[in-house]
Every structure is written in structure tokens, then in C-alpha cells.
């Protein structure tokens, strides 16, 4: 979890262009999932819960201590541990974190 230290603190600049994985995305900011660096069967399990490439994910509250964290995705809320969230890679964003990219099926 070394990569965690970069941009996860409360004082970190809310610069979404640095946020490479879901675990690095600050609470309340939207990110767009690019791909899942997880074994196929686990990736499919998460995709069934809405963690699909192109979908918008917003980190919400976490348990005390920072994990697991609740993520708003595809109309529901799902909690993941940091080890899982750090395997979900986000699309690079050009600084406007809340802009909605042309993701398919993400607004239903």
C-alpha cells in the first residue's frame, strides 16, 4: 500500500489527474473507472455490482480508520477494502473531476 501515501490525506490537493486508482480518489469526488486489475472471476463479481469500465464512482464515507470505504456506483452503495479499491484503475481526468465523460450506461 505504498502508493497510498501520495494523494489520500485530507490536505491533499483535489487534483483528480493524479488519482490513478480508486483508493486514491478523495471522498466526494467523481472518478471514471477504466479497468480492473483483478483476476477475471473477481473482476466479474465487482462488475455485476456496477464497477464497470466507464461508470462513475464516488467515494463516500468510510469506517473509522479509513477502510473499508463505501463507494457510490451505478445507483447503489458498495463497501470495499483499500486493497481491492487500489486495484480499480481510473481514467485519467484533465483536472475537472466532476465532469461527466461519455461513459456508457452510467446514468441509468
Amino acid at each position, binding site marked *: 500500500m505504498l502508493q497510498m501515501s501520495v494523494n489520500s490525506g485530507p490536505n491533499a490537493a483535489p487534483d483528480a489527474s493524479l488519482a490513478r486508482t480508486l483508493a486514491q480518489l478523495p471522498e466526494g469526488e467523481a472518478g471514471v473507472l477504466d479497468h480492473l486489475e483483478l483476476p477475471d*472471476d473477481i473482476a466479474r463479481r465487482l462488475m455485476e455490482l456496477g464497477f464497470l469500465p466507464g461508470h462513475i464512482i464516488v467515494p463516500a464515507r*468510510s*469506517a473509522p480508520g479509513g477502510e473499508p470505504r*463505501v463507494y457510490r456506483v451505478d445507483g447503489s452503495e458498495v463497501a*470495499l477494502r483499500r486493497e*481491492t479499491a487500489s486495484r480499480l484503475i481510473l481514467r485519467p481526468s484533465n483536472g475537472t473531476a466532476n465532469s461527466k465523460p461519455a461513459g456508457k450506461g452510467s446514468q*441509468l
Partner: protein
Amino acid sequence: MSDCHDCAGCAVAEAPPGLQKSARTHVVAIIGPPNSGKSTLFNRLTGLRQKVANFPGVTVEQRVGKAKMHKGATPYHHDVVLVDLPGVYSLNPRSEDEQVTRDVLAGAMPGIPKPDALLLILDCTNLGRHLVLAAPILSLKLPTLVILNMADDLASRGGHVDTAELANELGSPVALISASKGQGVEKVFQFMEGTSAGTTSLSPPRVELPVLQDIPRCRQWAHDVGSGAAYQAPAPPIWTRRLDSVFLHPIAGPLIFLIVVAGVFQTIFSGAKPLMDGLQALFLKSGHGIEHILPPSIFRSLLVDGILSGVGAVIVFLPQILLLFLFIGILEDSGYLARAALIADRTMAKFGLQGKSFIPLISAYACAVPAIMATRTIENKRDRLATILIAPLMTCSARLPVYLLIIGAFIADRPLLGRFFGMQAGALLGLYVLGFVAAIATARLLKSSILKSERVPFVLEMPPYRWPTLRSLGLRLVDRSKVFLRRAGTVILLVIVVLWVLENLPVKNGQPPEIADSFAGMIGHAVEPVIKPLGFNWKIGIGLVSSIAARETIVGTLGTIYGKEGTEDSLGLRKALQSDLTPGGAIALLIFFAFAMQCMSTVAVVRRETGGWKWPAIQFAYMTFLAYFCALIANEVVRSGVFTLTAHR
């Protein structure tokens, strides 16, 4: 979570899982994703006419019930049998749940006829994601009613869907209902009337079904179908977010969590006390009543001293268990249980477990049987198995009478920490801690060896908060009572009667024998060499043998053996024990009870939940070894005089 809950019904005794399909039986399966309200609908349609078992050979729960059809609504008086399938997001057979669902739908599950019709239940506040399941279900080409549940939520949060247009697209009837409020449920009955009468005709979906293995395309398909039916997703649940900002607050959250856990404990112990005392008094009274009515005889002795006191000693725990389940029911139905699991996850992870193991382990303080059934909310099979295996080490309420008896007799009632916390309370607390430490140490051991975790990550869906309904809570409690009373009326009753017979045979000169000469005494003498190193004599041996069925039995047994009243408050029994058991033996007995798996109901429920004898056998051997070994050490240490115990003789 609410879909895999254990307690809408849980039979320890094996209910016949199979259904006999006759010409008059019409089988309807209910299928839906987790948290779609599947169980609520099943309860709504069947009421109390349901049976819970496992699907043959697997640990997946099977609930079957008869639909409450209107009289004369179905021709030829068809019985409509409902099968509740596990909550799944897809039919890709990766988990046991999905495999079972596939097998039942294909008619490949032994004992379950292929369903004649399907009820597909979806949460319409999240239709986009839930509609994905419609693709594989509709491709089965069975008569299907698509049920959009949570209609009340959809409306109150400003969502909308055109059911007529959705039905048009899918080629299946669509019903917008609220299973918890009962709105629109008549449409479900009408559908089943139609399919059982054979008047429902199949029409193919107007929309083309997607390639099932491609999840992104299935999701896109669901989106398009939803858009076609003018689906307007509801606004986010405002109240859920407000409540989460309190319950998941960095400071208030853990505090509330601790208060809730303390509340569960307080309820288990003191809240149930008046009810338990009342029940105890009732049993005593009826015993005296019978003694007044019947003349002294062997039969009266069996009835009063054997059955009534023995079974009564167990039934006394019913209020505790029901209160615990009421508590768990409220926590689960309201949605707080998921938040509790979230908060507990980090701590539980240190022991190799996860957040969802927390509530079952807390429940195990009341009784391991419901706790083990409550592990059904843990999807990760290894985490679930580890939780099942350590649950009986938590200090259940059946150990309490034994602890109270021995501590009362052997630990001096001196102040330990101030006036309000004495040595006796300290000893009791110590035993609770001992059980907990043994449980988490065992968990670590298991998770770092034979149950080393699969690569399945921790994933927890957070359902919106909802008001629990009295109906669902009531159903759980009725069901729990049935299960518990069945256990008291079968296993425990049998042991009590057998023990009574063994204590009263062989008859000499028409008189029951002295206890030492009875068959029970012979058994006690036979096991004495094995238990002697622990500081136990043959009388304790009889108690131990009888307590293999259920721990609390030993109190009654020792009471009978010492010819005194068999209650833990009885001074007579304490005195008898003080003169008959060394301090080392007494401490060893406490330790033995803390670790040993003396509970046939637990063995039975572990066998049922793990689908075989392997795990209960391993568990029984491990716990017995641990108990024997630690009791041996305890006896030696106390005997050597490292600690001095002052008995108040």
C-alpha cells in the same frame, strides 16, 4: 444482506428437502438479486406455511412454502408450491448460490421439480443494475412475472417507470409492487392462478437478448430496456445519507456501535431475566402441582425430577434466544447490520476474519446454534467456515449455570477492584475473556493454515435504511421458537429420560439402586481413570457424560447424584461439591466447560451448515483436546500451590 438471512426460518432438525411433485403441484420459483426484497415477498406469499432446509449436498439454504391462494382460485385444487432461490446477480456458475440457482431452474436439482413458472423480483429503485438479471432469466423461456419491488420508495423519491411498456419490451407481464407494504401483491397471485391453470401464454421478448457472458453489454442492454420503458431513476435516498453521516461518523459512529453492542449484551443478560425467572417459577410450580395430584411412583419421579426439571432447565433459555433474534432482526431489517459489519471489519481483519463475522460471534454469547445459522450472511465460504468453527468457543448462555455453580462454591466472594467488582465477578469475566481469546486465536490459526483465504475480496452492499416491519420480525421469532422447542422436546428430552433410566437401573429388591451401583454410576466409574488427572471423580464423570448432549444438563445431573435440589443457587449442592472436589478440580472443570464442545445441537447445526460430518468431527476433536489439555494444566498448577484459592467453607 436481507436475502441470505438465516432466521426467517431455521430448522436444526432436517426437514425433508425434497418436494413430491404430483399432478396437482404447480412449482413457482422466486429469483432475484440480493437486497431485492425476495424474502419479504416469499414471506408475504406463504406466511407461516414454509419449510427451511438445505439444498441436497450443499450449504445453500432452501426455503419452500405453499402459496396462500384463494380458495377455488385454481382449478383442480392445484397446490402452488413456492421455492425461494438464493439471491444472485447472474447465472454464471461461479458460486455455490449461482450453481444451485442454475440447477433448480434447469430441473437438475434432485428433489426439486423443474419450476413451471418464475417470479423475477427486482428492486425498481435500482432498475438499471437489477434488470441485468432479466436477460438470462427470460432466455429460459418459462412463464415469468417480472416484479418491480419497492414501488413505494420509487414513488416517494420521484422515480418513474412505464410498466406496460416494459412488459411490451420484455414479452412478460410486469407488476409494480411493494412487498413490505403488501401493495400490488394480488397481481402476483393472479399471475400464479393463471400459470397454474395453464392459461398464460408465452410471448417472446420484443427486445433482443444480449450475449450473457458479456457483463458490460448486458448492463448496456438493461440500460436500453429501462430507457425504452421511460425509466426515471429515483433521487438518492436522502435519509440514508443523513443517517450514514451519523452512524458512519468517525467519532459518533464507533460510539453508537459500542452502545448497540452493549445493548445486545444487556438485553441477552438482564432484559431476559424476569421472563426467565417467570418460566423457572412456572416449571417449579407445575412440578409441585403434579406432586400433589399424582401419588409417589416411578412414573411421577420420571415426570417431575427427570422430564420437567431437565427440559425446563433448557426451555428457560427461550426468552434470551428470542430477545437476541428480535435484536438481530431489527438490526438486519433496518440496514444497520451492514454498517456494523463495515465498522467491525478492520478489527476482525486482524484475526483473519471480516466484518460480517462480527454479529454471529456476538450472537454466540447467547447460543452457538443461532450464531452458526447467522453466518449465512457471510458469502466468503472460508470466512464463513472459520466463523462457524470458532463460534462454540464464545461463552454461550448454557455455560452460565455451570459457571455460577462452580464459582459460587469455590471462589471466595472478596472485593477485587473496589466494592462493586468482586473475585467472583472477576472469575466470571475471566472465563468470558478466556473463551473470546481462544476463539480469535483459533481463527488466526485456521486462517493462516487450512482456511488460508481465497482471493475473494471483501465486498459489502450497503442497503438503504428501512423501518423493520412487525410482520417480518414476528415471523422470525415464531420460527426461532419452533426450532428451539423442537430441540428441547427431542434431543434434550431423550438424554434426560435415558439418564433417568440409567440412574434407576438395575432394580434391586424392587428398589432403585444407590447411584454408585446404578448403570450411570458404572459409566462414571468407567470414565474415572481418564478424567482423574483433571481432578474429577466418577460423579463428575456422570455429569460430564450427560453434558455431552447439552452443557447445562450437568447441573441437573449433579443435583440428582448428590441427592440435592438441582438448581445452581442450591447451597446444598455447593456444599456437596466443596467437600467432593479439590480447588484444582473445580478450576479444571471451569476450564473444561469453557473449551469443550458439549452440545449436540451445535454439532447438528454445524453438520447441516457445512454439509457433512467432516467439520463437526474436526471441531469436536479440537475442542475436546483443548479442553482436556488446558484443564489438566489448570489442575496441576492449582495443585502445586502457585495460586491460593480460598473457598468459603
